[in-house]
């Protein structure tokens, strides 16, 4: 593996540019001194740079105390630049005025570590709701993971304050956390004029299960089921991303057969996930006949998953170093035959939707996510591609054996565009699977691995977009595990997408993105 040549150099505002463009699809860690930090950040904002994550690590390498890691990506250049900001105390200046996405990240850091951002735009808690005691910061090393006492009677003044919209005829609709359908919990606070949505504020983290803390102190092998539990329908994407980071740290090469099988499973996950989204979109326009076709196909895919891996959600097959077990040749052959006949039926189901004007009417011009929002909000996946932005982690930061993937974009930025993008991507994923199976070699599916200490970032394109994992191993065990799935950033896109739409179209817009609550709340 190529060494990180510029590792941990102190960087100046003038020299940071070249690190993005030096090539090689690497992650480059640079230290920013507190004096030049603001200048570097403002310099970056003027360029085509996206903040993709911001997180905190306590006692990182030689630094005692807190280190903030700011991960930036320049679209079109393969490298990810991670700025290290070593804090002297427990406070830091906010960057939310320059990178608006930082608002959630900074709130997350404050909850987790107690690091204060005195000039933050929003000082409300994020993942620790009001039931948690004050001054409780679970990600501090001094806190040993154990049950804690919480407050179950919340005084009115301690209740979460939603942003209030006022004016003649403006009223609020509170929805959730428990919703009417079989869906995950979250709270949506609509401010509405008549039937039109004036503002939406989303409150998440009802499902906060403490994934990141749970991983600490575990061996990498023990941590794979934790990665799988981040979001059930992103099992393969997250397990692969976690394993990739560990394999990078330990400088282990995964055998080609294992990578090809991983890729087949990754694409299967994309197929069944997109299938479910499309069924949902069609169902929410009150066209169950059309939705049933997708539901039937998705159930078949879940059964194929079971045949291939023993689990309908492909749990327990990905492991550090490759796969837990091989998939026999004849199973792959049968699967390939199945996909051949799946393809035209899938096409038929999609065509049926296009023929029904009452469905198309509802999907078109609904829930527009403007292209201009994609960069500042780090919107990724089909949501970004449907807004005409050609980004895909499989191409931008190639991993495994991904070399040629066609990026499907649309220009409408609406629900219809997202439907189209997903429909085309299913077709592409089927082709990819067929090609992978026809070209697969026999051989080992797992490489022996000697766990080393170190840290690494990995990026994987899940069905919803770019999932980011950062793993820090010390003395052979996980010291810090940071996860930021595509849903975390994409939720904020929904707040923008619904404005000006009518309340009954909200479920449709929500389904067109079908974000993971579990994957956001961790």
């Amino acid at each position, binding site marked *: 593996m190529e060494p990180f040549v510029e590792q941990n150099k102190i960087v100046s505002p003038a020299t940071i540019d070249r690190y993005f463009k030096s090539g090689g699809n690497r992650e480059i860690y640079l230290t920013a001194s507190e004096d030049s930090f603001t200048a570097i950040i403002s310099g970056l904002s003027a360029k085509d740079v996206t903040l993709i994550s911001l997180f905190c690590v306590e006692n990182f390498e030689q630094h005692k105390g807190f280190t903030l890691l700011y991960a930036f990506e320049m679209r079109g250049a393969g490298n990810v630049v991670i700025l290290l900001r070593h804090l002297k105390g427990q406070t830091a200046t906010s960057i939310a005025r320059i990178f608006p996405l930082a608002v959630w990240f900074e709130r997350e850091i404050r909850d987790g570590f107690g690091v204060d951002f005195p000039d933050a735009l929003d000082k409300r808690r994020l*993942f620790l*709701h009001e*039931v*948690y005691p004050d001054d409780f910061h*679970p990600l501090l090393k001094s*806190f040993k*993971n*154990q*049950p*804690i006492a*919480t407050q*179950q009677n*919340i005084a009115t003044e301690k209740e979460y304050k939603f942003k209030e919209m006022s004016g003649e005829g403006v009223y609020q609709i509170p929805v959730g*956390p*428990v919703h*009417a*359908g*079989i*869906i*995950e*919990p979250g709270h949506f606070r609509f401010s509405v004029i008549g039937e039109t949505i004036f503002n939406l504020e989303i409150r998440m*983290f*009802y*499902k*906060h*299960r*403490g994934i990141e*803390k*749970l991983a600490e102190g575990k061996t990498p092998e023990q941590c794979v*089921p*934790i990665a*799988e*539990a*981040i*979001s*059930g*329908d992103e*099992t393969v994407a997250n397990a692969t991303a976690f394993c990739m980071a560990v394999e990078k740290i330990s400088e282990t090469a995964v055998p080609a057969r294992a990578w090809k099988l991983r890729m087949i499973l990754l694409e299967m996950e994309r197929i069944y996930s997109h299938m*479910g989204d499309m069924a949902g979109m069609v169902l929410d326009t009150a066209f169950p006949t059309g939705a*049933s076709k997708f*539901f*039937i196909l*998705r*159930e078949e895919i*879940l059964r194929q998953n079971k045949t291939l891996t023993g*689990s*309908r*959600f492909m*749990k327990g097959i990905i492991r550090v170093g490759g796969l837990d077990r091989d998939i026999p040749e004849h199973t792959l052959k049968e699967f390939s035959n199945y996909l051949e006949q799946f393809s035209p039926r899938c096409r038929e189901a999609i065509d049926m939707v296009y023929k029904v004007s009452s469905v198309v009417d509802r999907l078109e011009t609904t829930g527009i996510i403007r292209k201009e929002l994609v960069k500042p909000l780090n919107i990724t996946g089909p949501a970004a591609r449907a807004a005409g932005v050609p980004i895909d982690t499989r191409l931008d930061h190639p991993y495994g054996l991904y070399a040629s993937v066609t990026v499907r974009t649309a220009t409408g930025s609406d629900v219809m565009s997202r439907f189209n993008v997903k429909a085309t991507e299913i077709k592409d994923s089927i082709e990819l699977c067929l090609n992978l199976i026809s070209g697969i070699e026999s051989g080992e599916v797992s490489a022996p691995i000697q766990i080393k200490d170190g840290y690494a970032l990995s990026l994987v394109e899940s069905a919803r977009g770019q999932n980011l994992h950062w793993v820090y191993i010390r003395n052979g065990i996980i010291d810090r595990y940071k996860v930021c799935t595509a849903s975390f950033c994409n939720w904020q896109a929904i707040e923008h997408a619904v404005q000006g739409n009518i309340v009954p179209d909200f479920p449709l817009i929500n389904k067109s993105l079908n974000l*993971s*609550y*579990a*994957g956001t*709340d961790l």
Partner: protein
Amino acid sequence: MMNRVYRRLRHGIVTEKVAFKDEEFENLGLKLQTEISSLFGRSLAIRELDSGSDNAAEIELNNLNAPHYDIERFGISFVASPRHADVLIVTGAVTHNMEIAARKTYDAMPHPKFVVAVGDNACNGGIFQGTYAVNGGADRVLPVDLKIPGNPPSPIEIMKGLLHLMAAIRHKSTGA
């Protein structure tokens, strides 16, 4: 109106024959239907509560409504409000952030009411047992009548679980 009747007589039933039929599932469904008929006056209303699952259990519960399973034909429906529910299905270890909502949902249900924990995490906290963010299994917060383990349990396993629930209710009501 009469036109439609004539058309129907002329063409017969036009819906396609389904290519799938799972004998085991059909038998389970019919047994369940018999039980529901006698115990719940022909229909069983279920409210689903996700209190911290990884969302796979929700997908499987949704699948019960999809064409392969279509459990409405056996008299089971998933309802939008706890006020209409006989059974509360809980998925996931109950997180602290969901605890208040979980209790309120249960309290809103009319009597008699039953709670079923679906999935390993709802049964006993699963991998989150003993951590800061969760209470543990659903039984830490609500009176659980039945546990259906699995990561997640498949639709057929959930059906089997519901049949066990019927047996338990029958046992309780007859005192046998």
